[in-house]
């Protein structure tokens, strides 16, 4: 894990300094524990990393970017964080989501609990932006949060420009679950928000669940538009590729025959602004490499 501050933390600090309100109030940063990756990722982006994160040991597998600063304590599973450990951390605030809401009454015996709903219908990217601003106010760094979002917007705009030059085909984003089934992502998911933001079109407009994905058999991919480009997200089950390579149905799919299939590194599907930006960058880089 990297020790140096993240690019965004530096940017945020710079922005704060330029605004002439350098490290506000000079009080110690509030000690926050996040039971959710997306909220933690945005706190890191704002420059006030949490003292504890649920599931921190898997951060590098699912979130990757921004890296979690060293010394952040893993408080256990989000659904059942270790309360003895949580109490010992003496946090000022504990962040939850509706998914882990059952922890709320217990955790509120330790510190005030604040619930954020990023995935509760509507556009998750818009909800994440609102949450980032609120987090900024909460930690006393509204300017840093603003700078974080402004930097993300500039990056999104730049990526949208690159997409416009590419004129890419419709994209289908899938995560293979085994050799026969895949999740496919659509509205109201984070990846759909990203596609809308940078001008990509989604080849799948089917009915998704509240979290923005559906489950498909490989044969269902045949019913999608034949000119699509398939992006399959890591981690891909190891037996998927060899099994699919033997399948007459898979190899005959027009986009497979034309080799418009790529594998993207992991990015968090239930993420915040940083994860959205990571997916956008990975997708555009992949399309450019193939242009």
């Amino acid at each position, binding site marked *: 894990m990297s020790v140096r501050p993240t690019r965004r933390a530096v940017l945020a600090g710079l922005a704060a300094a330029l605004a002439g309100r350098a490290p506000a109030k000079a009080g110690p940063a509030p000690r926050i524990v996040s039971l959710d990756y997306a909220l933690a990722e945005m706190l890191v982006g704002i420059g006030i990393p949490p003292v504890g994160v649920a599931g921190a040991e*898997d951060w590098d597998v*699912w979130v990757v970017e921004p890296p979690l600063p060293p010394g952040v*304590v*893993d*408080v*256990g*599973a989000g*659904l*059942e*964080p*270790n*309360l*003895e*450990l949580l*109490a*010992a*951390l003496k946090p000022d605030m504990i962040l939850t989501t*509706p*998914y882990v*809401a*059952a922890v709320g*009454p*217990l955790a509120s*015996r330790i510190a005030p609990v604040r619930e954020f709903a990023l995935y509760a219908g509507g556009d998750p990217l818009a909800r994440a932006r609102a949450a980032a601003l609120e987090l900024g106010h909460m930690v006393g760094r509204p300017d840093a949060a603003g700078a974080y979002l402004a930097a993300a917007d500039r990056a999104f705009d730049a990526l949208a420009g690159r997409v416009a030059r590419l004129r890419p085909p419709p994209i289908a984003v899938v995560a*293979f*679950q*085994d*050799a*026969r*089934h895949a*999740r496919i992502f659509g509205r109201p998911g984070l990846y759909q928000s990203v596609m809308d933001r940078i001008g990509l079109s989604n080849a799948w407009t*089917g*009915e*998704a*669940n509240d*979290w923005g*994905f*559906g*489950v*498909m*058999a*490989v*044969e269902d991919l*045949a*019913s999608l538009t034949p000119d699509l480009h398939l992006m399959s997200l890591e*981690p891909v*089950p*190891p*037996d998927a590729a*060899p*099994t*699919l390579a*033997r*399948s*007459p*149905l*898979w190899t*005959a799919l*027009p986009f497979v025959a034309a080799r418009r299939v790529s594998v993207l590194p992991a990015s968090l599907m*239930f993420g915040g602004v940083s994860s959205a930006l990571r997916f956008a960058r990975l997708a555009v880089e992949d399309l450019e490499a193939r242009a």
Partner: protein
Amino acid sequence: MNPAVSLSPPRLAALLAFAALAATVVVVWPPLWDGRWDMSASYDVGRMVLLHATLPRLAVALVAGAALGLAGALLQQLLRNPLAEPGTLGVSAGGALAIAAATVSVPTLGGLGRDAVALLGCAAAAALLLGLTARRRFAPLAIVLAGLVLTLWAGSLTAVVVLANERWLSGFFLWGRGSLVQHDWTPALALGLRVLPLAVLAAALARPLGLLDLDDAAARARGVPVTAVRLAGIALAVALTAAVTSAVGVIAFVGLVAPALTRLAGARSIRDRLVWSATIGAVLLWATDMGVQVLTAGTGLFVPTGAVTALFGVPVLLLLLPRLRATAPPPSAAAFGTGTLARGPASAAIAGAAVVGLAAFALLVGRAPNGDWTLALGSDLADLLPWRWPRVAAAFGAGAMLAAAGSLLQRLTGNPMASPEVTGIGAGAGLGLMAALFLLPEPGPATEAAAAAAGAAVALGGVLRLGGRSDHTAERILLVGIGLVALADALSGVIMATGDPRGFRLLRWMGGSTYGATGAAALVALAGGAIALSAVAAARRWLDILPLGRATASSLGVPYGAARIVLFTVAAAASAAATLIVGPLSFAGLIAPHIARELGFARALPQAAAAALIGGALLVAADWIGRMATFPYQLPAGLVATLVGAPVLLLLLNRR
């Protein structure tokens, strides 16, 4: 068989086949009708899907259904138990565990692929089962119990693996729940090639199998090598189950329902039962799979067929239950005898002291934030106690209630497999919780608890209604209970397969976690355990007499029917209360009464009291291990209890 309804196995099979055919036409017709059956086109979506997805899927459904039906018929004959099915042996559970563990620990699967790993897991489970029952000469009761325990154990290990890797294993729920989706003929052909020779062998074994209708001694007298036949038959059933599980995962209930339907339709000879169980199994799975495809077409829902077979199977089973004719006498608990280790008041005092010591240990010993082991005393303990004592107390109270309920149920039904879980009370609570989670917008903890209680009450009502109605209640109660368990299991399988994140909350609750226990809940649990034991004490004479039967009980002045209803109510209420606190996975209720008996507590009250102490201690230990083993992560107490308790029970069963 009632002559007014002239149902025969061929007619039943034809009826199911007609439904399946109708659904097949609905699925297959559009691509043909659209004029897409044009072989000259180089690529055609409809044709590709029909040839390489729809048709191989149909073939897999037929072969897998036949294999499971045949395996079920073999097992029900061999174990003389109409509840036996491939799942009872723990073979499918072994395969599922192997896949889950391999997916996590050796992502490349050692180059073997899913099929081979599953087959290895199935074979290992079968070998373990046979090894454990060899000393009992593969007696039906020993095999069913060992198989059940093995299933629970493998299922718990699988759940631990899944919980520890929740984001990894979404795919496991599709495979594990028996999705029949195909995009290639290879699996269909491989499955067919494995099942065909096994079916031929089963046919060759038909005559000696038929002679097992007699009891073992009579069969031996006719020159049947009983042990060898039983071993060969079980090996066949295991191989059939393993072939299906490795190809398409766990398909619930076909192995139970197909032979049951065959029997109800009037098949008498063993040859008829084998042939028509396989045929009806094939057609049943075909019809189910086609029904799933027709009903989910265009809805965007993905539902694995193996989970749905239970949704179809349970109502069929319940509807036909009153017509299920009595089979060979069910195995009796007396076959176990009792141990001689502990007798008299001294052993009770020792047991009590051990429980107090264990509780103190669980309260004092823990791990510091950096993971070091610590002994909490003084002000440290004052800080930690508010977190620890409700969990320790709730675990003990729930374990005691489950064990008391389990010992009541085993005594009342005369069936050593009976436990709160098997009677469907835990499953009822689980169904209630599911309804709250998925039908209500963002239910609170209080709503969830109320819904679970309502579900438990409905299940309890159903069990009581059956329990009060006839003399052949033991089997029926177990059948209804197993049906409810399968229904809850199937629904949770459908939920997990959709990848809905709420599924993990369900999984965690079903694992039996004391995490959310408040001080009030803990006190209620302790009080519940005390009340259950008081009820056993008040009714101890009934309990000693009821197992002797209605006639004996009546002559001794015990009101047979009323006494049974009262005692069932006590058992069900204790189970429901415990389930609300530590989830429906009540292995303590099955194992604790057995350990108590093995230790030498034979009469009703001492056995129930010892079982309650053992059940409570088991869950306290399990909860502590769950809090410590993967610190700062935690494993649910119910799962850990199963992991620890199952091997103990197997060792005890195998001791003589």
